[in-house]
């Protein structure tokens, strides 16, 4: 959550002292839902370069033109799009090749933590 330094900083918001909590739906529906991935920690403050990279990669995942992203790595998906002449952005590939090949945050798609 971004905290702005104008009016709200002076008065303060109610959410500063009481965090927003969404009511979880109770009942049978919850049990049926697949296990959700661990919550990603949200950091206050401006975007770090790493976050920006990850956001670019997430946007790549969500681009439907390049086909489904579940079950294959980002690089595999990029290469498939390249193979079929869909012109995937070159920066994505550079970003993926720059990173160490072990970090699943970079290698795998947005839905990596969901079971198949």
């Amino acid at each position, binding site marked *: 959550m971004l905290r702005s330094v104008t009016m709200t900083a002076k008065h303060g918001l109610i959410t500063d002292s009481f965090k927003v909590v969404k009511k979880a739906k109770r009942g049978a529906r919850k049990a049926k839902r697949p296990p959700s991935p661990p919550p990603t920690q949200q950091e206050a403050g401006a975007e770090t370069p790493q976050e920006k990279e990850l956001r670019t990669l997430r946007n790549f995942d969500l681009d*439907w*033109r390049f*086909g*489904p992203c*579940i*079950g*294959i790595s980002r690089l*595999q998906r990029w*290469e*498939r*799009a390249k*193979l*079929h*002449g*869909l012109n995937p952005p070159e920066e994505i590939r550079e970003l993926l090749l720059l990173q160490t090949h072990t970090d699943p945050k970079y290698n795998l798609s947005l839905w990596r933590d969901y079971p*198949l």
Partner: protein
Amino acid sequence: MFSDLSAQKEGSSLLCRPSEDQGPVFERISLAYSPCSERFTVGERSFSRQYAHIYAARLMQMRPLLSERAQQKWGSDVLIRKLCDLQTGEQCCIVGTLFKRMDLQPSILKEISEDHNLLPQPARVKYISDMDELVLEDELQRIKLEGKIDRDKFVTGSVIAIYGAEKNDGKFTVEDFCMADLPPQSPRPTLTSDRFVLLVSGLGLGSTHADSMLGLQLLVDMVTGQLGDQGEQRCAATISRVLLAGNLLSQNTQDADASTKPKYLTKKTQAGSVEAIRLLDEILLQLVASVPVDVMPGQYDPTNFTLPQQSLHRCMFPLSSVYPTLQLVTNPHQCHIDGVRFLGTSGQNICDIQRYSSMDDHLEILEETLRLRHLAPTAPDTLGCYPFYQKDPFILEECPHVYFSGTAPTFQSKLVKGPDGQECLLVTIPDFNSTQTACLVNLRTLTCEPISFSAFSADEDEDSEMNVSH
């Protein structure tokens, strides 16, 4: 043709006194052969992917081809739309994957659902019904189709282009459609002499009634030149290669009980296929000693079930695998024989389309798959298939000269011509076990003729008497 060649005889060499000197030796023609089935071999086997990828890859690969065809057919200014940009009443063309919603299609979910508590559906010959609906899908959406499109003929998974307009009720009225049609073809070399490739399918070894054993032995003897007089032997030498297109073993070798019976009861019993494989090894030994043989696996053969089926393992053929002439290949199989491009399957793809469409004739279905430019459109919907993600290997990128499928009920062949002058010989190879028929493809003229070894076709009783000796 082969039959004419073998009939030319200058005085039979059979009805004469055995001569002192050895008879003439006929060299078998050996032809340049290069297998090109790399795309059907599966290296890493990961089943952790969904099948969405193969449909996505298929559409990605086919879209440019079909857009081009659509422009050829309906003019270069035809409006090609994605479904998301579709406007009601606008005449346009859409490229997408067909999906046929079928009430009768067997579904495991339907069978196990507690609400219905239904008995499992009986196996049917065909699963089409009047309630079927044809739907076209692209990357994002789907739309129901009606109008000038034969609902029963098409199958799920085919990528086509349709032309028409969306009506107010949200359905698309098709006025015309087009398929990818034949892929480009490399020219066929002109050959100076007749040379043949023998196609056989469905040996059916290990079946309970071994009717085909005599026929099979005659076939082997004919190919290896042990049959007939010198004229026939000379002809046998022009058979440069034998291609066994699947179902070498009979369905009976697949013991249905083996999977359901507890282990301690089946521990000491031998699998039905062991004896049949040994028999196959012996038959192959006779063949490979004399002629190169390509062995494709089929539906009932001991390899993986999903297409593409990987080649049978060499260790199953201790006798014949020492010969370099034995080629164990994949199903589907693709190769160049003396510059002539062969492509074909053991017939699962054709049989599956037969079940899910109104088409009955294997040759007609075979031609349809060529026009669709796809070997097995129903995979992975109703036909087992490896979850590919990068590209769909069943899309035909180059037009074969001979396109075959095995395990057909009868022998049929036809020469089809493509829009760009492609020529392709379609062959349905009959099941040898039931028809005792194989087929010979002449590489020079690109024609095909059946060759039958039926011994006692008229009388069934005599056939069953034959069993005793085997």
